[in-house]
């Protein structure tokens, strides 16, 4: 049986176990990390974690019973459907990783412009004007609000440095 496609007539319950799996893993790590702490520091976590583990155990039993009765299988289909959206979804997540990694070098404005242009292209937008003007409008708005108006600590890159130099040049003139 494929792990991706569910058998006809059977409920795909494999995907239902991902959140309990993550929660169980985290609970195990949590218990490990608080083992040596004073009771005040761990009382609440132990209480919550124990109930969580109990709930997950019930969920596992519930799923096992369904699978044993052949009413369900361990397919991951709900997470991967529809197939045509999957590459765009994975692409968007990967693009976001690259965006976060590149921002310290490119600065807020340029990374947002390039990231959005790439994101729109990935989603299937092919009109050149839309690929340029939409990211430009968003990046310019972000620059005006976050850098120019609020002066927040977003990473500065070539665009921010060039605009800062330009501004100081005008301010320096008598």
């Amino acid at each position, binding site marked *: 049986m494929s792990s991706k496609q569910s058998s006809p007539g059977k409920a795909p319950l494999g*995907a*239902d176990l*991902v*959140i*309990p799996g*993550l*929660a169980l893993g*985290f609970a195990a*790590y*949590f218990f490990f*990390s*608080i083992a040596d*702490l*004073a009771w*005040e*520091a*761990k*009382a*609440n*976590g132990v209480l*919550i974690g124990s*109930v*969580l583990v109990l*709930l997950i155990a*019930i*969920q596992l039993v*519930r799923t096992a019973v369904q699978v044993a009765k052949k009413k369900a299988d361990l397919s991951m289909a*709900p*997470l991967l459907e*529809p197939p045509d959206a999957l590459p*765009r*979804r994975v692409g*968007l*997540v990967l693009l*976001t*990783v690259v*965006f*976060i990694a590149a921002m*310290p070098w490119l600065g*807020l404005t340029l990374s*947002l412009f390039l990231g*959005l242009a790439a*994101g*729109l292209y*990935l*989603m*299937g*937008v092919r009109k050149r004007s*839309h690929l340029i003007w*939409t990211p430009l409008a*968003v990046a310019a708005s*972000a620059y005006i*609000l*976050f850098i120019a108006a*609020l*002066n*927040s*600590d*977003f*990473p500065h890159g070539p665009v921010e440095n060039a605009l800062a130099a330009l501004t100081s040049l005008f301010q320096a003139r008598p």
Partner: protein
Amino acid sequence: MSWDFIVGQFAVQFGLWWVIWPAILLGIVVGILPGFSPQNTLIMLLPLTLAVKVEVALAFMIALYCANHLAGGIPAILVKIPGSGGAAATTLDGYPMTQKGQAQQALVLCFTASVFGGLITTLATLALLPWLSQIGLVLRSVEMVVVMLFGLTLIAVIAAKDFLKGLIAGFFGLLIGVIGTDHIYNTPRATFGFLELYDGVPLVPALIGLFAISEALVMLEEKMIVGKEGQAKAASAQWAGIIDGLRLSVKYWWQIVWTSFVGLFIGIVPGAGASIAAFVAYQQSRLWSKHPELYGTGIPEGVIAPEAANNGVTSGTLVPTLALGVPGGSTAAVMMIVLQYHGMVMGPRLFASNPEVAYGVFVSMAVAYIFMIFTILPLARYMSRIVLIETTYLAPIIVLVTIVAAFGERQYAFDMGLALVFGVIGYIAHKTNYHVTAILIGVILGPLFEQYLVRALRISQGDFMILFSSTIGNTLWALLALSLVLPFLRGWRQKKALAAAQFGEDD
């Protein structure tokens, strides 16, 4: 405090329209973006507020604060992305209303509930300030444990469709909420070695990931976020939609009044905030409703309750700040810094030494709300058209702009990565019907619940009976028990009535 004094204060504040209006517009813009809280914006604008006269600074800060609270509901309704934790509960019914083609009505309900909720509680605060300031002293850690439990029971309500999955999501969120150093010894717990998690899981990246990014990843499956009927309604949005929203607001006026007072009372308690108020108000609204089963399907009461409470908090937070000198929240703390810079001494003496500032704060708030209704209401017609933008454009814009916003709260690049991690968790939860709101309730209320519980137990040296040691606390326990029993009782009576009716038909 005479009527002449109050009327004079209103005249002064109306004269500051030139600073209130820009503050409202800025508050709305930053309020729509998750991550830009009013305290962040005010900190960034400190050079401005410190440079101008105290009454001007005050009018600016108050207007920005109130507008920010109102604006968080706009993206919550239109694209299921709450602008702040206080608007997270608004997504429960606001977004379903948008999907039904009622975005305009939902926005108007959000605006009127926010404005009138804020206005009513502000006027009530002005009238009852000496008494209200005592509430912060009466509600201690024991009572706050029960207040937190009121909010947490919403997890069980949300879990109604699949109780086990809802509870797993809620307890997963609660355990995530325990990440960070403990409240007594400051020892790190489950921080994965990241210093950035020592203060706990930051709310904004969690909010952005669980709602914005996960929703953007899901919306890719469709061309538009609403069906054809919803698109047609949004495209033909007329003033009639706004009038219909106003009609609904009048119809549910009592809902606005009592849920805004929930916000006021919770706001008075230092440390409690808009998120708790909104969740408690939603839970209570559902509890006392004649049709609780309709909550979550897109009904006006589900939008009104969290929004009125969210804005009821605004005046509540300032009560302990001014009356006791204890900031009711982080925004109030920033305002306190500005006022102290201008030579004001917070506490009971402020009302005698500088009544124009002490009462002026609340008058300024009332005036800001009055200005806001005229500024924001006409925009509902145009804002509702955002649902006409294709998801091919919306999804990347939402993901990248909200990732940028995740940086805003603490200015850590780490928070952007954290938002993405929560986004993936939220997407999985979304696709497998583990309610993301239940996870978020846990993340928000978990640390606060622990803080109050540990403080109470510390006082009693580990004796749990302290939780039942005060009259107010015991009354709240009784109300909590009633909250939990009432839905079952109601369901049993409905079943009995149905069975009796069927029996009658058979006869």
